[in-house]
Every structure is written in structure tokens, then in C-alpha cells.
């Protein structure tokens, strides 16, 4: 038995050291190839398992993220509830071919600051706006305008109102002082206008802008096309009204509608009507003894169209906007120096149309055309000359061109040229202006 084992062992050893024949080599080669492919398969399987395990890890990671996401307590500061503050700074350089002191708008009596800004460098208006939610029901907002009037700082309350926060049924109530919802441009602060001065019709009818001290109620109807209706009642204390009313001094109704046409176009149209009955309202340009008492009413039609390719205004966009007003005044003129009175019946009408084109990002150019008219069915020549009222030009007109550079959402540098035919003498006006907004991010209103 032992010998047999020894023999087999010796045979096996012998077999190993025996020279290998050719067919055996190919057999071994085939075996090796098979082993290799098997290993490759196993490696592949292992790799796949590894990838799966990694993916599973990711899943775990996502779950960890959920845990991680439990909010971290924030440190609270004592001024956390302070209102949002934004400050608008504005400065300009102006040049006119005629003296701005002689500026008149033929057929219209200019009020307050409705003239031209002084020649040369001027600071213009600086504006501070504060706003915040008051509580769960109200928000509050105030805008103060600071202007330098011959060395005296004049602080004006442009707007100061409270407003309901989501009353329901599309209703919003606003109370306090606010820009009246008459016309498209009227509700916007001067720094948000596309030109550095007001359209002539705004200058002539309102002394640039109409303000209401009172209450506004508005409804957005539950329709897919915007329909907003509303109205205001107020003190009637702002031009072309004047102070001295005991109860409701002016009222206004308005309606707006608008929507999109496709993805690149949008529009809005509005109508509004305002009425008041001023007593002893100064008439004519500057201080004079003649005053108006009677009824005044103003109707407005406004249209806005905007284009932005694919609804993305960042690169290029175009805006076409227009406001048209018609005013009717009927009453008496009275000269307090001569105690002479006479009937007065007048119609003022006109508007502007402007187109603004952003041709490349951060650059915009715009054109504006103003056209006014007036007609008087009753007007006493004596009182007319007493008031030093200019009637030399039946159709004041103005052409404006502007070019803007907007380095960011918060700053703007603008150059503007007007060819102004407001009165007997034509005037060429040039403005170079900067406007910046510091603080809270402004709203992109339509």
C-alpha cells in the first residue's frame, strides 16, 4: 500500500516535469482565458455593487439632510422689527435756451412746483420711504420728500398711508395720503418715471401729480383677465381742488383691465373720473388776486403695452404708454383787489405718448410727445389780464428724447433733451440726471 502511494506520487512529480506537448499548451491557454473572463465578470459585478452601495449612501445622505434641516435657532436683534427703509437720491444738471423764470404753459395756470427746475446743478428731491406690516391686518408706508427751496429744506409728506393685507374677496382698503388712482403715471413716484420731468398734461392739470387725503377702496374681480374697480373719497384739499371742505371734498372712481397676449406681450387699460368743487382757488401763474370757485371734473384714459421676448425683459424690452385727460371747469372768477367777478367755463385736454426701448441690457432710449389744448366758452378779458394769464399758444407741444444707462437695478444715469413749445417762445431744454436707490429692494410694478 505504501509503495503504491509512493509510486503514484513519484508519477505525479514525473508528470509535472515531463516536457509539455503543444495541445496541452492551448488547453491551458483556454483555461486561463476562461478564468480571466470569469474574474472580469466578477470584478464588474463587484463594481456594480460598489456603485449601488455608493448610491445607497447618497440616499442615506438625503435622509441625513432631512435631519440636518431642522431649523437652527437664529439670533434675534432688537431692531429686527424695524421697517424697511429705502432712500432715493437724485441730482441733476439742467440747461435751458430760455430763462426758466419766464416759463408758462399757455392756457393753463401752473401751481406749486410745476415750473422748471433751476438752471445748472441742482439736488432735486431726495426721498425716504419707510414700510412694514403693522400687524396681521395692516401694512403701513410713508414717503417723505426732502427738497432744497432757496436754502430752506422743505420736507413734504408725499404719501403716508395704511393698507389692508389680504382682506379677502379681492378687496383692499387704503387710508391716509396717497397718489390718486387717476391715470397710469400718477400713482408712481417721480423717480420711477421714464423722463426726468412730468408730462405737460400732468404739469398743467395737477402741478405734476394729484394727491388724495382720504380713503381708497378697490376690488380685484375673480376673473382670468384682470379687472380692478374702485374709488376714493378725500378732503379735496389738493390742487385742482383746494382746502376748506367740511366733509368729502373730492371723489374718484376708476376701472382697470389688462392681461397678456401670448408670452411676449402684455397690456393694461384704465379709465377714471375725478370731481371736486374748489372755493377761492388761486388762478393764473404765481401770486395774483384772481381766484376760481366752482366745479371741476377730470376724466382719464390710459393705455400701456409692453413687449419682452419670451416674457424675459432682462435683455430687451419695449414699453408704449399713454395718458389722455379731459378737464371741465365751470364757475366764477373773482378779483379780491377790485372786487370784480365774472363767469368762467373752460375745457382743458391733452396727453402724452411715450415709447421706451431697452435695446441692450442696461441701456434704454425713449421718445415722448406731449400735446395739449384748451378752450374757454366764458372768460372775462379784464380778469384775464388781472391774472396775467397766458393764452398766446392754443396747442402747447413738446418733444422729448432720453437715453439711460442703468448699471444695476439700483442706479440710473439719464440724459434728456426737450424741444418745448409750451408758450410763445420755443425752448430747448437739456437734463443730465442721476437717480439711485439705497436700501430695500424696490418693487417691479407694471
Amino acid at each position: 500500500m505504501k509503495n503504491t502511494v509512493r509510486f503514484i506520487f513519484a508519477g505525479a512529480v514525473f508528470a509535472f516535469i515531463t516536457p509539455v506537448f503543444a495541445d496541452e499548451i492551448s488547453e491551458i491557454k483556454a483555461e486561463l482565458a476562461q478564468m480571466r473572463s470569469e474574474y472580469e465578470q466578477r470584478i464588474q459585478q463587484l463594481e456594480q455593487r460598489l456603485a449601488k452601495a455608493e448610491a445607497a449612501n447618497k440616499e442615506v445622505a438625503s435622509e441625513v439632510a432631512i435631519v440636518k434641516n431642522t431649523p437652527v435657532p437664529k439670533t434675534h436683534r432688537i431692531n429686527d422689527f424695524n421697517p424697511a427703509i429705502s432712500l432715493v437720491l437724485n441730482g441733476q444738471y439742467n440747461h435751458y435756451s430760455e430763462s426758466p423764470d419766464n416759463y408758462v404753459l399757455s392756457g393753463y395756470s401752473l401751481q406749486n412746483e410745476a415750473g422748471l427746475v433751476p438752471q445748472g446743478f441742482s439736488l432735486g428731491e431726495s426721498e425716504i420711504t419707510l414700510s412694514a406690516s403693522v400687524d396681521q391686518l395692516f401694512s403701513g408706508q410713508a414717503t417723505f420728500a426732502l427738497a432744497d427751496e432757496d436754502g430752506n429744506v422743505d420736507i413734504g409728506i408725499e404719501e403716508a398711508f395704511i393698507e389692508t393685507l389680504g382682506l379677502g374677496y379681492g378687496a383692499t382698503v387704503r387710508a391716509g395720503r396717497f397718489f390718486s388712482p387717476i391715470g397710469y403715471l400718477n400713482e408712481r413716484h417721480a423717480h420711477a418715471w421714464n423722463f426726468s420731468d412730468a408730462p405737460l398734461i400732468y404739469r398743467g392739470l395737477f402741478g405734476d401729480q394729484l394727491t388724495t387725503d382720504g380713503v381708497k377702496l378697490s376690488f380685484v374681480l375673480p376673473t382670468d383677465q384682470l379687472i380692478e374697480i374702485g374709488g376714493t373719497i378725500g378732503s379735496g384739499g389738493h390742487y385742482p381742488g383746494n382746502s376748506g371742505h367740511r366733509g368729502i371734498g373730492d371723489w374718484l372712481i376708476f376701472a382697470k383691465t389688462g392681461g397678456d397676449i401670448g408670452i411676449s406681450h402684455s397690456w393694461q387699460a384704465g379709465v377714471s373720473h375725478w370731481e371736486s368743487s374748489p372755493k377761492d382757488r388761486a388762478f393764473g401763474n404765481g401770486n395774483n388776486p384772481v381766484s376760481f370757485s366752482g366745479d371741476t371734473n377730470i376724466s382719464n384714459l390710459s393705455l400701456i403695452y409692453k413687449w419682452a421676448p419670451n416674457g424675459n425683459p432682462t435683455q430687451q424690452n419695449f414699453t408704449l404708454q399713454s395718458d389722455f385727460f379731459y378737464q371741465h371747469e365751470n364757475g366764477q372768477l373773482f378779483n379780491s383787489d377790485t372786487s370784480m367777478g365774472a363767469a368762467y367755463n373752460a375745457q382743458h385736454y391733452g396727453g402724452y405718448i411715450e415709447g421706451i426701448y431697452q435695446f441692450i441690457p442696461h441701456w434704454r432710449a425713449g421718445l415722448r410727445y406731449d400735446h395739449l389744448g384748451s378752450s374757454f366758452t366764458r372768460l372775462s378779458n379784464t380778469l384775464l389780464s388781472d391774472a396775467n394769464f397766458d393764452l398766446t399758444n392754443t396747442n402747447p407741444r413738446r418733444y422729448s428724447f432720453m437715453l439711460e444707462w442703468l448699471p444695476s437695478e439700483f442706479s440710473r444715469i439719464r440724459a434728456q433733451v426737450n424741444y418745448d413749445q409750451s408758450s410763445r417762445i420755443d425752448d430747448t431744454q437739456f437734463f443730465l440726471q442721476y437717480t439711485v436707490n439705497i436700501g430695500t429692494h424696490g418693487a417691479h410694478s407694471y
Partner: protein
Amino acid sequence: MRVLPLLLLLNSFPVIADINIFACEPEWASLSQELGGNNIRVFSATSGLQDPHHIQARPSLIAKIRQADLLVCTGAELEIGWLPLLQKKSGNASIQTGAAGNFMATNYVKLLDVPVALDRSLGDIHSAGNPHIQTSPLNILLVAKALSQRLQKIDAENASLYQQRWEGFSQRWQAAIEKWQQQAIPLKGVAVVVQHDNWSYLFDWLKIKKVAALEVKPGVPPTVEDLNKVLNQIKATPAKMVINAAYQPSRATDWLVDKAAITKVTLPFTVGGDEQSENLFALFDDTIQRLLDANK
């Protein structure tokens, strides 16, 4: 008598409690559709080709938000220029800040790139952090869970339906995440240049390495000097691709592609950013495919 059958017919219609959703961006409109199914009607305020930061409070948007029961937006100041204005004008109580119908997606994920200093000279920065969270499917999952809970709260009658849809979505989405992660293995550690810094979450997820941004200050167009800096940098240490979003013009990207051996990739950024990205699933299919193609 003739009216009666008509009334009966009207009565026989199933009463569907339609929840009107106003989504600020298309990714949230798509997610709302996934989670709400037939119980919701969704309107997207922006499309995949619009910059969600630069939107105006257009009349059509006021009309839509007036009728909304639920607002699904990004938050973190992305819509700061227009959403607060829309809320104010809406006269709609249910979507005001703090109401149940006010859902801000960024409240449910951890934000990256929270700035250490807040100054407008640094460009268009968001104080709460990077708001472009939809570039990672992990974030989508987190937001989806919270959104489903919100739907169940607002429309309690149909809560079980929303729960079902959430469970279904969650399963499909996690399987999809696994698939995307497998596909994206070759992208790990790949060096890329971006035009605008809005891919942080995508890169964080796929471990892609951002080596430079063409816009040094977010929102401020790069100067030639900025661009040359990036060019010199990638000449020294090459990057594989330069990425821009479909809604942004690719001028800066094209400049770099022209000057250096680098591949341009335009990613959809959100649902509707390109033809393929019809929904959230397709968005990531397409995003990863485009990255892989550029990596070849």
C-alpha cells in the same frame, strides 16, 4: 318641467374641490402637479426661459394670484421684486405671508452660499443664501414632502389622496435619484466653469468641482478683465466644460469657448428650459445627459 332634467344633470357632476395653485416657477408647478394630480389646478407665473428675479407684477399675474388658494414659490428673496407687490394687490387673505396658503420651498432645505457680508457692491446677492435649490433632486424630495403635507392641511378632505400621491412620487423619485447617481459617476470631480453662480446644489449633489465663475459678482456682466482672468486660470489648470443656463444669453460662455479648449453646456435649469425638460424627471434626465455628453 324642462329645466328639471337639466338641473339633475348639473347636480350629477362629481364635486371636485379644485385647489388653485399659483406657482412662481415652473419646477414648483411641475411638482404641484405630481403631488396634487386632478385635485389641483396649477398656474406657473414664469416659464423656463424667464429670469425669475426680473419679473414685473403684470396685470395677468394679479388676476391669477387673486384666485389662488396656495402659493408655491422659492422664497429666499428670489421673487422679492414682484411677489410682495402681487400679494398686496391681490386682496386675497389665503396667500399672505404666514397663511397656510403661503408655501416657500427654501424654508425646507439647507441653503448654500449664505453670504458673510451683505453689501450691494458685491452684486445681486441673496442674504438668505442661494435660492436656486431646484438643481438638486435631493432638495426636490425635501420640498415635495413638505408640500404634500401642506396640501393635506389645506384640502383635508382629500388628505389620503395627497398622501398616496406623495408615497408614489417619493418612490419613483428615489429610484430616479439612484439611476441618475449611477449615470453621473463619471462626472465626479470633473472641473467646470460656470457663467452665473446658480448651480451650487447640482454640484454639491454630483460632486462636480466648480473652479471659476465668469460673473465674478452675481448679476453683474463680467468685464473683459474678469474673463481674461478665468481664461488664464483654465490655461494653467484646465477645466472640462463651461455651463450656462438656458434662460441666460451665453455671450460670456461663448467668448470662453472661442478662446480656450473647453466644451459649452447649456443646461435647462428648470422645467421648460429646453424641449426635453417637460417635467421634473425629464429635467434631470436631460441635465445629466448633457453633462455626460460634454464630458466625453
